[in-house]
């Protein structure tokens, strides 16, 4: 069996960072310790690098099937490993919608064929994401789905959501809720506030997100079931979650790098790469998101990787597509803003980007442990670079971070014991 010995790196464990060697045999971490020697193993010189559990992104859009001009499983997987991710969970808003076992199966098979990172499909909650009839969750689970969500389209009907949470729980599937009250969004394209007024763009009030977030908390609480909140962007949302968790509601939540690194000041140039849903908010929200990540109210960092064709991002702001191509910038942005910014320790960062998603969805990996799957990422935390979308492996070059200087560069991504990305 193939062996790989990672020598001299600083490994990021749940309880701290220690210099040690990691020996991998096949797809498993077999030994972690000092001065390991194995004559048969290939050596990976990790001196000067930090060794993380492979990052897990539980919220991406790979666009296949149906929108391969934006991204496909091959390009999305390449982007994922380039970003340090060993597992990604792809949302079902493809065409056709991933609302049945056949499409789930197709995605799983196609990802295996590509053979870079592990792709875990998320099935739709309702058929066609129409919000009317439950999708075949049992069959999708059997085909490989790891959760259900109507991401991109909220389940507007509260009764439908209640039924979904209940039914999904029979199969151990978690509902991931994209919280958005459509009536309050009302055609809005940016955060409602000073900058929406300044730019003359229609605003999306925070209430649009928070009202549905509160609904999901109440449903989870009354039903005694789990629910997961997608891409939290507001201060009020963090507070609702903090209160809910304090009273023991089984709710988990994610946020994205753009919600803790940018304020909506960026929209006033009408650069459609800043258009994302939920919208980039204001400074006080950014602070609250950071605080939520610090105290664990927000369990994990996802990218909501939403690649689009440049034609969908180049015209009128109102007409541009929502979304940011984020999987290749997530680690650097998070490390720079949160660890260097003094919000999180390296261990906590690894938790938010790997451990927590694994725990929430019951996935393998997420920690560096003997006996655990050998999904590992190595990064040079001292390396500084400037984000340039031209370097992206993703087809989507839509990033508001172009030109930003960040720290922490992914050097190797190892999936199942095999190096899938070397820089």
């Amino acid at each position, binding site marked *: 069996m193939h062996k790989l010995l990672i020598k001299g790196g600083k490994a990021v464990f749940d309880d701290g960072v220690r210099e040690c060697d990691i020996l991998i045999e096949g797809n498993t971490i077999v030994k972690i310790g000092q001065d390991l020697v194995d004559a048969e193993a290939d050596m990976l010189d990790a001196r000067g690098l930090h060794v993380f559990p492979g990052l897990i992104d539980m919220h991406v859009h790979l666009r296949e099937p149906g929108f391969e001009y934006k991204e496909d499983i091959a390009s999305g997987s390449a982007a994922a490993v380039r970003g340090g991710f060993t597992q990604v969970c792809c949302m079902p808003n493809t065409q056709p919608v991933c609302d049945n076992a056949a499409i789930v199966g197709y995605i799983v098979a196609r990802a295996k064929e590509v053979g870079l990172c592990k792709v875990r499909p998320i099935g739709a909650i309702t058929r066609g994401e129409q919000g009317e009839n439950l999708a075949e969750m049992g069959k999708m689970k059997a085909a490989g789905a790891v959760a259900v969500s109507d991401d991109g389209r909220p389940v507007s009907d509260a009764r439908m959501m209640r039924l979904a949470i209940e039914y999904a729980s029979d199969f151990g599937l978690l509902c991931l809720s994209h919280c958005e009250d459509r009536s309050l969004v009302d055609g809005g394209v940016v955060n*409602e506030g*000073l900058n929406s007024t300044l*730019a*003359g763009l*229609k605003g999306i009030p925070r209430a649009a997100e928070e009202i549905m977030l509160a609904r999901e908390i109440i449903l989870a609480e009354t039903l005694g079931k789990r629910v997961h909140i997608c891409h939290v962007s507001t201060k009020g949302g963090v507070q609702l979650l903090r209160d809910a968790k304090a009273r023991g509601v089984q709710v988990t939540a994610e946020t994205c790098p753009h919600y803790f690194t940018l304020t909506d000041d960026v929209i006033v140039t009408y650069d459609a790469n800043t258009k994302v849903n939920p919208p980039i908010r204001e400074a006080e929200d950014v602070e609250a998101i950071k605080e939520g990540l610090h105290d664990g109210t927000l369990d994990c960092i996802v990218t909501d990787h939403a690649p689009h064709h440049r034609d969908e991002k180049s015209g*009128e*702001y*109102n*007409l541009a597509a929502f979304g940011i191509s984020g999987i290749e910038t997530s680690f650097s942005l998070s490390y720079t803003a949160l660890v260097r910014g003094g919000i999180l320790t390296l261990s906590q960062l690894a938790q938010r980007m790997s451990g927590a998603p694994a725990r929430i969805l019951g996935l393998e990996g997420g920690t560096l442990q003997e006996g655990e799957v050998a999904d590992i990422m190595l990064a040079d935390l001292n390396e500084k670079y400037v984000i340039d979308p031209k370097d992206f492996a993703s087809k989507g070059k839509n990033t508001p971070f172009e030109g930003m200087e960040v720290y922490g560069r992914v050097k190797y991504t190892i999936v199942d014991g095999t190096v899938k990305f070397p820089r």
Partner: protein
Amino acid sequence: MLGKDLLGLYHTSAEDIVSILDTAVGMKKLLTQNLKKLPHLQGRTVTTLFYENSTRTRCSFELAAKYLGASTVNISASSSSVQKGETLIDTGYTLDAMKNDVIVMRHPMGGAPHILARHVRASVVNGGDGMNEHPTQALLDFYTMREKFGEFKGLKVAILGDIKHSRVAKSNLFGLTKLGAEVSMYAPATLMPQGIERLGAKIASSREEALAGANVVMGLRIQLERMHGGLFPSLSEYNQYYGVNDEHLRLADPDCIVMHPGPVNRGVEFTSDVIDAPNSKITEQVLNGVAVRMALLFLLVKNRQESEKHA
């Protein structure tokens, strides 16, 4: 100094605003004498690219361009073609290839002229973009105010109506605060945008408070579709609680002027007494609009010519 484009007043300096107004004085003097044949834009092409219906703004720009000797082309693109037809940037490339010198653009979406301007060599003039700005309307308003009061320092301007959806209100606010005037605003809470007070407006708590001592009383058009969208219940209720009649007008400075960007809904924003009062400048604004737009086109082309010389 005024750049290649005029996209809004938020980024236009007080000096540039004043230089446009100063140039417009000469233009108006010629216009009032019916002298409408200047040679400055001869051999230049001014295209009006309107994705929204407008008679007065387009006509005003077209006449201004013609009076300066330009050739004019009018393109009407329906709002629906924004979504389906040629992309904005491709339209820009096409107009540029045809050697347009100035593109006057109106668009239902904020920022569209900014995006166009980045992709064309021609000067872009914002003729109104969504809820964003309508700089030339505000400039003609300033002209009208300055003609009456001589200066802006300490001038009290009350703006009443649908502030939220009004590009006119915003351009006025941006310019007037730079020029030293005080702007107070009053509207139903449903028609007041977020954060406008942080942009320099004083939000009045009543119509009476907004009007008290005002030198300029400016009404904004109430769009019927806002009522259908549920932002207020009826035109008659609007008029009763938010409209201005001649009695309300007595709260303003006795020497005040009444302004409105038009077209006016008689009996809604203002009663006919107010619209037709001797201190109403609503018709005068139209003439000033042509003068101000002539001045703007004149200065844009002048700057362009000078920078071409330097290049």
